[in-house]
């Protein structure tokens, strides 16, 4: 791959002052070379870097997953698919898979709906556009330390702001950390808070490329804002919708920071593993130095993500017609 691409970058050596007819032929040749080879040249930088820094870790991990591999120990026994076998019978693994799915759905669905709506709102002529757009990004740049602090204040059992507000309606304080459902909700809120603005911005960028005339025509026809969003905007930015759905799915499946921080570095994701995600499960086994098992989990997780992304891709395509 790489060699093919690099020959394409270097233009063919030209003989000096070729006769006109030859020059025309050369031009045709050059054109054909350009048409055939340059696509590879354009994707070459990405592929080169991926082979250097992406493929090696991937294959290495696969190799490790076939071993009884303790970090810090120098002997690694080959166990074939033993780690995977153990994994399939491990209830903690399935628990983590369930939690990941639950938190993924709870956080991604409302997040994307909200993001597309926010982008739609911002895609109109408004005062103070820039300020609104910049503030959308603030959650994503706020460092994790601040996020932990603020959210443990919000979701604190005894002195938390959320429980305080709930108490106005006479509700009992919720121990957010303890319950399965409550912890999933709290973590999903953290994820939504961090990533909604980010995705809104991506939608917004795509919406900017939708020709204004379409909206003008629709406005004349008396279509409401919501109708315009549904009938014009979303169909026009369909590839971006597919993009955001897929990347958000991947992100949700890999979520690590939020549950880790929500549990204040509880690697089991709470005493009952009630919010241990797959990434956290990998991390737990990694700190237990069980590199082989951790690698096996990450390969299983990879498979899950592929399935989840494929399902979402098909759903998105179905709901919105065909891709591109």
């Amino acid at each position, binding site marked *: 791959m790489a060699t093919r691409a690099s020959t394409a970058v270097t233009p063919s050596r030209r003989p000096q002052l070729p006769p006109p007819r030859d020059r025309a032929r050369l031009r045709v040749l050059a054109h054909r070379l350009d048409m055939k080879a340059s696509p590879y040249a354009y994707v070459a930088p990405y592929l080169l870097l991926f082979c250097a820094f992406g493929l090696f870790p991937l294959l290495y991990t696969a190799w490790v997953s076939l071993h009884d591999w303790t*970090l*810090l120990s120098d002997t690694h026994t080959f166990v074939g698919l033993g780690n995977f076998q153990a994994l399939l019978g491990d209830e903690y693994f399935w628990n983590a898979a369930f939690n990941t799915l639950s938190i993924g759905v709870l956080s991604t669905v409302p997040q994307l709906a909200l993001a597309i709506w926010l982008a739609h709102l911002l895609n109109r002529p408004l005062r103070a556009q820039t300020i609104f757009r910049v503030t959308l990004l603030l959650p994503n740049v706020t460092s994790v330390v601040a996020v*932990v*602090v603020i959210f*443990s*204040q919000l979701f*604190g*059992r*005894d*002195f938390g702001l959320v429980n305080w507000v709930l108490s106005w309606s006479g509700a009992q304080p919720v*121990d957010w950390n*303890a319950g399965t459902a409550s912890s999933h909700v709290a973590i999903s809120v953290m994820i939504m808070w961090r990533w909604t603005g980010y995705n809104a911005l991506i939608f917004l960028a795509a919406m900017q490329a939708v020709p204004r005339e379409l909206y003008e025509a629709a406005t004349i026809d008396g279509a409401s804002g919501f109708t315009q969003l549904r009938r014009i905007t979303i169909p026009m930015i369909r590839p971006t919708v597919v993009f955001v759905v897929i990347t958000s799915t991947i992100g949700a499946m890999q979520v690590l920071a939020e549950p880790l921080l929500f549990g*204040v*570095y*509880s*690697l*089991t994701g709470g*005493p*009952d593993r009630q919010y241990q995600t797959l990434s956290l499960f990998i991390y737990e086994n990694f*700190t*237990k*130095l*069980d*590199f082989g098992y951790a690698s096996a989990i990450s390969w299983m997780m990879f498979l899950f993500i592929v399935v989840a992304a494929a399902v979402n891709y098909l759903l998105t395509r179905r709901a919105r017609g065909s891709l591109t």
Partner: protein
Amino acid sequence: MGKLRPRLVTPLLATVMVLGLSACGGGTDAGASPDAARPAEKIKLTVALFSDFHFAPLYEEFKKTHPNVEIVERRAQFNDHHTNLTTQLATGSGAADVIAVEAGYIATFTPLADKFHDLGQYGLTKRQGDYLDWKWRQGLSPDGGKLLGLGTDVGGLAMCYRTDLFEKAGLPTGRDEVSALWPTWEAYMEAGKKFTAAKVAGAKWFDGPGENFRAMVDQAPVGFYDEQNTLVAGTNPDVRKAWDLSVAMIQAGQSAELAAFSPPWNTGLTKGSFATIICPSWKTGSIKDAAPATSGKWDVAAVPGGGGGNQGGTHLMAPKQGKHPKEAAELIDLLTSKDTQLKLFTEAGALPSIPALYDDPAITSYVNPFFSDAPTGKIFTDAAKALKPQHVGPKAGDVLTAFGNGLQRIEQGKQAPQDAWQQVLKDLDRIK
């Protein structure tokens, strides 16, 4: 001519070498020693810690005797520090010259004798006489043949309590009377029942069950592992007893259900959400940092169960990746010296691991103003003297997590005590 030269050169060389030897006088071979050959060589030593150990003045002191050495301290968050260390040791690169390893991790690293410098080779075996025997042995390789780490501090136990809350509950507040309240952990629970019955608004008896459970286990002659590093936590009757008592305390509603060092725990500390908290000596510093506003509301009493027990404490080790083992060893020597440990007790609450200091007036006469002038010097040295050493196994941290999670499941009403115990046993089976 051609034959003459070597004949002349050899005696000449020999003369020079003899002269060189006598000139050095110390007996080191001038030609072979890189130090002597390049006296001005700049050496950079890195020291990796997980907290401020108040070492900065000591670096300056070290530079006086080692003008060619530059010292750089790296500090990272507790979890990050130990995770990074694992990565660096696994890949054989990037570790600092001197690293701090906390008690929960020390038994994980000492079996990897080939990944650390043997400090004994650099003369530090001479320090053995200074140390508490068990602390010394924690720093040895499993066969006892290599000295891999030297201790800084130990975590002798006491019980910190809130005098204001005790007063509200009608309990005695003087530290001797309070100590007399709980000769045993059962008595501690009974005192807790009185406290709970007094219904002091917003306050429970202790912060969370995990730390008390840990203290009880620490006081037993055998803890989670036996001397052969076999995991016996599931069958050790002392562990079961500590568990049952912890469960009883939870069921008596004595726990504030706060995980140590979490932000809600910080808040609870300030708001007075709990009346007692198990205090290894270094934790007195943490309480002061986390809740400065509670100064004067605390006091320190003896730990239930009659002294003994150790929580935390640190060793300094030198990974083999380091290129300057001699200087690293000398630095470790200084950072763990008697004088240093004496100073760090008053500055940071770190209890020395050198028993000779336990009778040093500077320590025994020390009172801690934050804790109502409690004589913490005397309290903690008494605790350290009473301490029965216990063998700490390689995965003690993971074992403790399994038990702590089990207790929390009971606390949060997710499991009946018997089910929680069964699941702990299952978790223990997974710890290899």
